[in-house]
């Protein structure tokens, strides 16, 4: 689909989708935890704006509810919760260790190309403005996974996990214009509960090891005293 044939608002959807992918990349390269939480909030905000614009473009009203849910959960509630936890545990200045930031970014680029080639056959099935976004949303899932693998601190792993969930939501919006409402509500509730449980786990990990580095979890308690 040539971008010149689309209307201005449809071009804006694609532009914002590109920006959402960029927030995924900046999450990948951001070692500061507070800044990563802020980037995650931006991602949620952009995602809900894209959803609203798709809703306007396609005239599907249930997408407004999905957009509102995304805004409340991903852009406001979860970032606020993570911020509060980080402040409570006095981790504001904490940085995650990124061993090879340049290699990780390059791997992210390769993952995007991989997802593009995977999504090519899927794109044949749909014929709407959002069809090029399917590849982007799949690569957001992959980038979230890459973030989970490369990070050591529990907080940034949770952000990576939530970014993966954002990618899945985005895939739902772009491929089939949203999921059935019952599924969407269920996922929102799951994410809500998960965020709270993660918070409880943070405190447990911090109490036991005095750090949020999950590498400590793999060492036996008898072996080091």
């Amino acid at each position: 689909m040539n971008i010149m044939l689309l209307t201005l608002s449809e071009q804006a959807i694609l532009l914002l989708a590109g920006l959402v992918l960029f927030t995924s990349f900046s999450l990948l390269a951001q070692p500061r935890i507070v800044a990563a939480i802020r980037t995650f909030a931006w991602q949620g905000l952009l995602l809900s704006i894209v959803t609203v614009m798709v809703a306007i473009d396609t005239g599907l009203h249930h997408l407004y509810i999905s957009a509102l849910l995304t805004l409340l959960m991903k852009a406001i509630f979860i970032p606020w919760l993570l911020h509060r936890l980080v402040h409570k545990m006095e981790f504001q200045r904490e940085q995650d260790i990124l061993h090879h930031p340049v290699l990780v970014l390059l791997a992210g680029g390769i993952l995007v190309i991989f997802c593009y080639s995977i999504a090519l056959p899927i794109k044949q099935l749909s014929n709407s403005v959002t069809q090029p976004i399917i590849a982007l949303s799949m690569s957001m899932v992959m980038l979230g996974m890459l973030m989970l693998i490369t990070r050591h601190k529990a907080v940034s792993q949770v952000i990576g996990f939530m970014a993966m969930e954002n990618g899945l939501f985005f895939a739902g919006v772009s491929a089939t214009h949203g999921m059935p409402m019952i599924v969407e509500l269920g996922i929102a509730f799951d994410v809500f509960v998960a965020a709270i449980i993660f918070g409880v786990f943070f405190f447990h990990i911090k109490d036991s090891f005095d750090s949020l580095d999950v590498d400590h979890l793999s060492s036996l308690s008898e072996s080091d005293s």
Partner: protein
Amino acid sequence: MIDIIDFKGWILVIIQTWMFVFLAPLLVGWLTWLKCHLQNRSAPSLFQPYKNLWRLFHKDVLLPKHASLIFRMTPYIIAGVMLIAASIIPLFVVRMPSSATADVIVLVGFFALAKFFQSLAAMDIGTAFGGMGASREMTVSALAEPAMLMAVFTLAMVAGSTNLSTVVETIISQGLVLRPSLLFAFAGLVLVAIAETGRIPVDNPSTHLELTMIHEAMVLEYSGRMLALIEWSSMTKLMVYGVLICNVFFPWGIAQHHDLYSMFIGFVAVGFKLMLLAVCLVVAETLLAKMRLFRVPIFLSLAFTLSLLGLLSYIILEVG
């Protein structure tokens, strides 16, 4: 197709190139003036860079004892390269005969040539600072060049040509199209321009602090008219990057016909765009602190990622 044997066109090229070169110190003066006002300092006059250059041109050249031919040749090579680079960038009018002779990849090559000779000259004397500066410059430019080329390829794919004049004309003729690829290429190219012209998060142009300087470390041994030529060339380089960014991504107003009225409009438009770009640059420089040298590769890998994203989003989102 652009006609290469066009006498009137070549006169225009000469006028535009000299305007480019003679207005570059004014841009630097305007940057300094803005920056001083933003930081509550009393500002030097807008024409201070001209006075500095004038003063340097009237001083004697002191050559180090062991300076070889390369050291003496380098200022002239750099100045010549920048002059040619200035002649192929459309400043206020497109479709000039000089732009048919070189495209934007050649431009990247010109910059590389200038940097190569500058680093050689810095190492030629054998002082510690020269070698250090050359090594740092090479580190930065080796990482900046792929990022710049990626941004250039994105532009070339959007416009279907690597010729700057054609790129500008294509982007004007398409009107307002929100292209994710151009947004990313723009961001990537801005980061590269900051690194290459030695502005604040990468290098501080106004200090000679030995631990952090990059460009200044390489030109420490120069004096007199040689120093003046090098300083002038780096001002021209800043102007080249500024005009490149303004005219390629925001080409509106540039003259498409060779008549006086549209050229006047083009000149006013590019002046206005450059002034605005300088304001953005100065605000960014005031807000940001210079980063550690070892963070520069991460900064440039961000530039590379942005340019790569531009390329990918062109393929995925715009034609796919």
